[in-house]
C-alpha cells in the first residue's frame, strides 16, 4: 500500500501514469480496430495480428536504414501490409472464411509462427528501436514527460478511428463491408462480391496493424517475438468493446492501457499482466452474471 500512498501524496504521478497508459492504449486500439473489423465481418479471429504489428515495425526500420525518416515508415508499413494482407487472403484466408471460427484461429496461428521465425531468420532476435526524431514535452518541472511520438500515436489512433467510421458509413466499399458482416448470404444475392469484401477487410486490418507497428518501433521496441501481447490485448479490447463498435474500441483500448500502468505501479510490474487478465476474467464473469439474469432472447 506504500505505492498507493505515493499516488495520493504526489498526485502528479497519476498524470504521468494516466498519460503513459493512454499512449500505449492508443496503439492497442489501433491494432484492435482491425481485429474488430475482421472478426465482425469475416468471423475470423486473427491471431497473426501481433505479427502484422511486428512486421510494420521492421518495415519502418528498413525505411530508416534506407536513410529516410522513420516517420515515413507509418504510411510505408501501412501500404506494404495492405498488399501482404490481400495476398494472404488470396492464398489462404479465403479458404477458411466459411469454416468454423476455430479453424481460422488455428490457420492464423500457423501464419503467426511462420512470420515470427521468418523474421527471426532475416533480422535476428535483437531488440530494435527507431528514433523518430521527434522530441519530448516536459511538463511540471520535468515531473511529467511526454514523448511526442506517443502523442502522434494517440492522435493518429483517433484520426484513423474516425476515418474508418466514415469510410464504413459512407463509402460504397464500406457499405458492402457492413452488409456482408450482417448477412453474407443476403449480400451475395444483392450482387456484392463478398470475396472482394473479405479481401479488402483483411488487407485494411493488416494495414492498420502495420501503422501501429511503425509507431511501436518508434515509441517502444520491436523484435520478432513481440507480437503476442498485441494480439492478446486486441482480443481483450474487442471483447470489451463488443463487435462493430469502433468508439468502444478506442475507449476500451485507452482504458486497458491506463489500467495496466496503474496496476504495474501499484502491484509491481510482475503482477501487471496477471492483474489485467484477471480483470478481464472478472469483467466477463460480471457480464455473464448480468446476462444470466436477463437471458438472451430466443425465437
Amino acid at each position: 500500500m506504500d505505492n498507493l500512498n505515493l499516488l495520493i501524496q504526489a498526485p502528479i504521478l497519476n498524470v504521468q501514469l494516466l498519460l503513459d497508459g493512454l499512449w500505449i492504449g492508443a496503439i492497442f486500439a489501433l491494432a484492435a480496430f482491425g481485429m474488430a473489423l475482421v472478426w465482425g465481418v469475416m468471423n475470423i479471429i486473427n491471431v497473426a495480428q501481433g505479427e502484422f504489428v511486428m512486421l510494420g515495425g521492421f518495415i519502418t526500420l528498413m525505411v530508416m536504414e534506407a536513410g529516410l525518416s522513420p516517420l515515413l515508415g507509418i504510411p510505408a508499413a501501412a501500404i506494404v501490409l495492405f498488399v501482404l494482407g490481400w495476398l494472404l487472403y488470396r492464398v489462404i484466408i479465403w479458404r477458411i472464411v466459411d469454416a468454423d471460427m476455430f479453424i481460422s484461429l488455428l490457420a492464423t496461428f500457423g501464419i503467426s509462427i511462420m512470420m515470427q521465425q521468418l523474421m527471426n531468420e532475416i533480422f535476428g532476435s535483437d531488440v530494435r528501436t527507431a528514433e523518430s526524431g521527434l522530441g519530448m514535452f516536459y511538463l511540471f518541472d520535468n515531473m511529467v514527460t511526454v514523448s511526442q511520438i506517443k502523442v502522434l500515436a494517440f492522435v493518429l489512433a483517433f484520426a484513423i478511428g474516425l476515418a474508418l467510421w466514415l469510410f464504413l458509413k459512407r463509402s460504397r466499399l464500406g457499405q458492402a463491408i457492413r452488409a456482408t458482416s450482417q448477412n453474407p448470404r443476403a449480400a451475395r444475392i444483392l450482387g456484392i462480391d463478398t470475396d472482394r469484401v473479405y479481401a479488402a477487410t483483411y488487407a485494411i486490418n493488416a494495414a492498420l496493424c502495420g501503422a501501429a507497428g511503425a509507431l511501436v518501433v518508434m515509441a517502444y521496441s520491436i523484435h520478432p517475438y513481440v507480437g503476442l501481447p498485441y494480439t492478446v490485448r486486441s482480443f481483450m479490447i474487442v471483447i470489451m468493446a463488443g463487435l462493430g463498435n469502433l468508439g468502444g474500441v478506442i475507449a476500451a483500448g485507452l482504458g486497458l492501457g491506463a489500467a495496466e500502468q496503474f496496476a504495474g505501479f501499484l502491484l509491481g510490474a510482475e503482477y501487471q499482466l496477471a492483474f489485467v487478465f484477471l480483470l478481464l476474467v472478472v469483467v466477463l464473469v460480471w457480464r455473464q452474471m448480468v446476462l444470466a439474469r436477463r437471458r438472451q432472447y430466443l425465437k
Partner: protein
Amino acid sequence: ECVITMGAAVSLTGKYSTNGTHTKNGYNLALKVINDKGGVKVGDKTCKLAVKYYDDESTPARGAELAERLIKQDGVKFMLGPYSSGLTKAIAPVTEKYKVPMVEANGASRSLFTKGYKYLFAVLSTSEQYLASAVALAAENAEKMGKKPNQITLALAIENDPFSQDIRAGVMDDAKKYGMKIVVDDKLPKELNDMTSTLTKVRALRPDVLVVSGHAKGAATATRQIAEMKIDIPMVAMTHCDSAKIIKKFGKAAEYTLCASQWAPTLKYSDEVFGSAMDFAKLFEKTYGYMPPYQAAESAAAVLVYADAFQRAGSTDPQKVRDALAATDLMTFYGKVKFDETGKNIAKPMVLYQVLNGKYVVVAPSKWAEAQAVIPRPKWSERK
C-alpha cells in the same frame, strides 16, 4: 581418424536465439582454431573436435529431452552447455544421471551449484557476482552522493526469470551486507517493452542506485526510457549492455551507465590458442563480422577447458575427463579457470564498465580499472 564429438543444445530459435547464436559461434570458433592447429593430443592420438547441435527453442521443456537424445541416441559423451540458466537447470540432472561431464559457459545461476552436481563445470562467474561490484562501488562512493553507505537506497527492476532473479538475490545479499535499503523491487514481465510505470515510481522515490537486469530487452528499454523521462539517479547499473548495443543505439542516452560483464576485450588475459583477449576479439570479428559479446568469449573458453582436460586425461573416458576437468587450472584469453568442488569457476572476477564518451571503460575491480567511475552521474539538465 579420431574425432571427439561433444553435444550441445543451444537456442537457435525463440527469444534467446541471439545469445544462442553467440554461444554457437563461440564454440565453433574455438573448434576451428583448435582443429586448424592440428587438434588435441589425447594419449598417443591426435583428435579433432566436433559438436553436435540441437535447437532447444529457448524453452526448458525441451532441454532435458534433448540432452537425453544427445547422450542416448547420438552417443555423445561430453556436453557443452546451452544458453541461459533455465536450460542449464533442465539439462544438468540428465548429464548427472548419465555421468556425462558438461562444461557450460552460460548458466550463471548460483542454484546450479548448490545441488552437489559432480559433472557440471561452469567457466563463468555465477550470477550473484554480476552486480556485486556495482553495489560495492556505490558503498565506496556513498560520500560523493552525500550519504553513509547504510543510507544508500536501491531501486531494482529485474526480469522475472531464473537467471535475472539470481542476480537480484545477489544484489539483495550485498545490499544487506552494507545495510542499504531497497525502495523499489519490481519484477519485470518477460514480454516487457515498456517500463514507464516502474520508472515513474523511481522518479518519485529518488533512490541512489537503480539496478536493471532483463537481458538485452531490459537494457535497451531502460536506457531509452530513463533518458526520455530524464530521470536523475546518481548511479544506474545494468547487465547485458553490450548485447543490447546500447552505445550504438542510444548514443548520448547511454552515457554513464554502469554495465556488468563477464569479460571485456580490453582485459589483459591471454593463452596459446587465441593469444590475447583482443586477439580473440579481432579473430571473432573477422570470422563473424561483429565484435564478440562476452557470451561468445565464455563459450569459446569452455571448449578450451575441454581441450585442456582431454589432453591431461590422456583418454576419452568420461570419468577420467571429469576428474581432469575437476583439476583444471588454466589461463585463457577469457581469464583464469579453476573450479571449486561445486564446479563453478572461482578464479575469474566480473568486471564493471562505465559508458564514457561513447566507449566501454572498465571501472571496477580496481585491478583492471582503466579509469575512475563517474559518480554521481551528471543530471540530465546539466548534460549538453
